[in-house]
């Protein structure tokens, strides 16, 4: 799966979780998205893991800095 495809799929998941279209790029962080709090983070991570059939490590769940890093992990693990 290439980067573009990952973003396309992520975009759908974000829209589902946040109930609205979310502009995503390599620099996007939790603080940029209205409603991305610690609880929603759990829901979001669980959805992404299911959709890409992969698992983040606990370290990654707590320390991913931005979407670019997340996409790196997804591409590596799925």
């Amino acid at each position, binding site marked *: 799966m290439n980067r573009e495809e990952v973003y396309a799929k992520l975009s759908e998941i974000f829209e*589902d979780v946040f109930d609205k279209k979310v502009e995503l790029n390599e620099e996007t962080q939790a603080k940029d998205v209205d409603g991305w709090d610690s609880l929603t983070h759990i829901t979001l991570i669980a959805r992404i893991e299911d959709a890409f059939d992969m698992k*983040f*490590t606990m370290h990654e769940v707590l320390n991913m800095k931005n979407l670019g890093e997340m996409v790196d992990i997804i591409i590596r693990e799925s």
Partner: protein
Amino acid sequence: MGLVMDYLALSKNCKKKTDDSFLNYSLAVVGTSSTQLLSCALKGYAYEEGIALNVFDAPYNQLDAQFLDQDSSLYKENPNAILLYISSESLQTEFAALDLDAKKDFANTVMNRLVKYWDAITKNSKAKILQYNFVNINSSIFGSYGISLEYSFEYQISKLNMLLMDNAQNNSGVYVVDLNNQQSLIGRNSFYDDKFYYVAKMPISTKALPYAAKIVIDVIKIFLGKIKKCIILDLDNTLWGGVIGDDGLENIQIGELGIGQAYSDFQRWLKSLKQRGIILAVCSKNEVEIAKLPFEKHPDMVLRLDDFACFVANWDNKAANVISIQKTLNIGMDSIVFIDDNPFERDQVKSAIPELCVPDMPQDAALYVKYLKELNLFETVSFSLEDSKRNDLYRVEAKRLELEKDSVNYDDYLKNLEMEAKCSTFDSFSIPRVSQLTQRSNQFNLRTIRYSVDDIERISKDDNYITRYFNLKDKLGEYGLISVLIMKKENDYLFIDTLLMSCRVLKRGMEEFIFNSIATIAKELGYKKVVGEYIKTEKNAMVENLYTTMGYEDVGNNRFVLDVDNYKSKNTYIKG
């Protein structure tokens, strides 16, 4: 009907507005692990069931403070119920730190702690207690050997579940919710996500949360009176494989061979439900003689004709038949489950009767029982041996209706029934049923005061009260305990605190019999006046004018007075 088993969908429900059609309920969630997402799943699942659930999510791991301090934020919330969730994961951490002697006694230690919490809750609030049981975890310290070794965590958790079951039986306000079964259904590896436990202290994964929420809401539905009482069943391809009218008695699939086994198992499951008090009825498009044939002649049928309270087979549309069954049984349409393998019939019935519960049965009969078990439609919070006779009571009732049709007029019918009533003061045998009736009766209930078993016990011992319950029987059978009367002695009159009657015996002359008894009691005790009150509810309009009909004088403020000396005994065909 389908189940919403997706956490995200449930969490979105939490933001939706509820309207007047929703029932209100408040629940406090108190746990040893984080319960924020669980609370959200509970609220979201309640929304699916038409319940506006107000959830108070207590700060986690402060059980002592919340339960033992009578001024705690928990008690200030005054919730209808408290969900107590001590996770096996938190217990495992506690267990690991113990020496071997303490490990051996761990289940008892935890159980004593629970009982202490329950007692404190009962003392400090009126909330019902919902207690999750404990999910099994094998520590793999001893391998399989651990399951027979007192020092292992797995042994202690299983023992704790057993202790919990025994203790809950003796605590009438405690309801165990079977979380452990949900874990076995979806599997430990789906139920628990190690990473999220460490990251967020969540012992239940987002995948499992809807399952954990469903079983709690199912019990709350019962508290709110949303009870399923009856199953109406199709026959061909539902209770047996094949079509009796086309295939004939020898060729339908039932019994211990091949596909027939699935239908036999389904029938066994239904028979157990009947034994626990669910009423069974048949609604089939068939000639009635042909429809009855397998029940009478097939050696492998588990269900027989006398297992059904009502048997309807004809070529009318099924919605009309369902309505006629509902009228015969005189129960709410929303308490009936309609089971039919044919999606076309289901759609038609469902659109004609939206309140009816119509499960989308799977195409494969092998999955009938599994699917219905998952729906968990027959939740209950009580069981008595009397429940197992309920089907028979309703079957006899259906026979009475036939007798009524055959009588020349209604008086003739009543006379033919040869009814006899018995009037007794509350005793230890009747107290649970009396309490149950004050909780369940809505229509023929003058003041609708709900009494717990404890309340009724207290009243029965209080000399200021006169208590009576009425049993009725006729030549076709027993109706059981069908009416409750509680009167309070005031200075110079008797006040009717509670007067209620089961709707199954309406218009049999029982009302007259009861009012004759009231006048007799007043006379015997030397009272000149009896005062009754009508408190209006949404459901008791049928008794609005009862007192005036029975010769009481309307004195305003919904109060009615009887001058005992002038009471004219009412005619009734019921013998005392």
